[in-house]
């Protein structure tokens, strides 16, 4: 079973994240960057399926040059090869534009499954699985806490408002996974060394057949008018417990009409 895993490089959530003053895009240059955490679970799930049934795992990343670091990490976990869509023209693309560009690359790859993490820590939009399903006309299996792939069929357990649903589709299909699905492995030393020689294809928008006029900040349908950093919540009242802590909490809850 051949699997493509979408992996995104994001600013570390520990870092001070901000927008660029000039073009009002996320500052990805001056901060520490890491692989989006849930994407590690997506890579792990793909590797487990591959280890059980054979096939190849391909990493697909859209992002600036330095996203190669994140791609290498996925390769060192055990993925076989990678495609890096990297072009200055893509900078500032919104989610719908990004799904168009990634969809163009996916159309050139042969796969049974596309696996994405349920959301990225920078945008938290949790939209890519649904967007790609619509674009590629392939079944949407979002929010998976368990994946079983066999032959031409993939079955997931999906978290919903009213419980868990068991949902099945024929391949090729698009899956987004939740964090609860597995425990990602750490790259081994051997894996890290091997990653250096694994095939990595870098594509420009031209190479990928992406229409430059449909991506990037200039073509983005929405423009940031202004932005403001919200100050952290102002500290409220801090009191020491003098044996009446329970009373203080009770009084607070009562004053805010919670009890």
């Amino acid at each position, binding site marked *: 079973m051949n699997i493509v895993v979408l992996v995104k490089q994001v600013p570390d959530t520990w870092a001070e994240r901000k*927008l660029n003053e000039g073009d009002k895009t996320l500052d990805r240059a001056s901060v520490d960057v890491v692989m989006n955490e849930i994407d590690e679970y997506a890579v792990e799930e793909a590797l487990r399926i591959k280890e059980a049934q054979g096939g190849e795992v391909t990493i697909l990343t859209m992002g600036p040059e330095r996203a190669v670091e994140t791609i290498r990490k996925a390769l060192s976990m055990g993925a076989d090869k990678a495609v890096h869509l990297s072009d200055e023209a893509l900078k500032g693309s919104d989610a719908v534009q990004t799904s168009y560009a990634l969809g163009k690359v996916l159309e050139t790859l042969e796969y049974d499954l596309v696996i994405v993490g349920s959301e990225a820590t920078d945008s938290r939009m949790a939209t890519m699985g649904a967007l790609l399903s619509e674009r590629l006309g392939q079944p949407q299996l979002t929010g998976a806490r368990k994946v079983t792939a066999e032959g031409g069929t993939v079955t997931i357990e999906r978290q919903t408002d009213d419980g868990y649903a068991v949902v099945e589709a024929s391949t090729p299909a698009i899956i987004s996974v939740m964090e609860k699905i597995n425990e990602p492995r750490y790259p081994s030393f051997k894996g890290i060394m091997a990653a250096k020689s694994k095939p990595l294809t870098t594509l420009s928008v031209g190479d990928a057949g992406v229409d430059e006029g449909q991506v990037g900040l200039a073509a983005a349908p929405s423009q940031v008018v202004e932005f403001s950093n919200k100050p952290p919540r102002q500290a409220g009242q801090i009191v020491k417990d003098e044996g009446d802590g329970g009373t203080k909490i009770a009084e607070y809850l009562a004053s805010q009409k919670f009890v």
Partner: protein
Amino acid sequence: MSVTVTHRGTAAVEPLEMSRLAVVIVRAGVLPVGAAEAAAEAGGRVLVLGSGTAEAAAELGAPRAWHAETVDAAPAGLSQALVPLLEQVRLLVFPASPDGRDFAPRLAAALGRPLLAYASSASLDDEGVRASLSRLDGRLEIDVRCAEPAVVTLMPGVRSPLPPSNGEVFELVLDVQPGVDAERLAVLEPDPATMDLAESTRVVGGGAGLVAREADDTTARETFDLLKAIAARLGASAGATRVITDAGWMHHDRQIGTTGVTISPDLYLAMGVAGASQHTGGLGAPRHVVSVNTDPSCPMTAMADLGLVTDARALLTELAERLGVSGA
């Protein structure tokens, strides 16, 4: 007044012609959190889809509502059926409920429109759509403008709903053709104790500060059973940090944080929670935060409306006594 307008067959569906419309997906007539707010943000016009839509539309009490039973419709078929119906509407507002968040991107892609996710407000004027978006775990507020029609998901808890009105309700019959979709084979029973966390308006969260360093597994379990009992007494859901769920003292479904459940309650009572960014990132914008921790400078206490500097374990016991609850 209830009016039934029946269209059969996709071709017969007249496009809806208002400029703003909320779209709410319901299951068995149950409205998701934020439904009434989305309807209000769209000027009181709402389309209710799913199952039990007639009663849900009635419950919303919006000035003008349309409803269509699309019980077993899967996303691909549904998005295709909705395109002709909604292509005239310039601002579509979904509540950012699980179903709304799941379906809004598909409809945006099918309509070829931008998706403005997690908005705290959305409006329409001569120049197009304007929205405020919350980003970077609520630390950044972005005002965006969009000259084209757009699809928006609206965060719950950002505005008040309209006063209920006895508006008109129209029934639509959508002809949803099978799309390239997944098939639902079974629905597993939800765990009633955990399914409500994301939508709960009150949450009591427990962290490592509730567990003594030398505590054995049984003692730790009892502590979190007590936390759940206290939460239940306060009409709240119990949550925990990742350390606690990883240790198995509470189920993984209870983990609040960037990699767990995202909540945005009216009240967050944090017991022995230091407030690492992975945890607070899952808090959204709680209206009231109470933090109980021995460390007065920990991030959780720093962001609290009331920070009580004391041992959370002892206070948990005291609260239990006051409320007359036991963990058993």
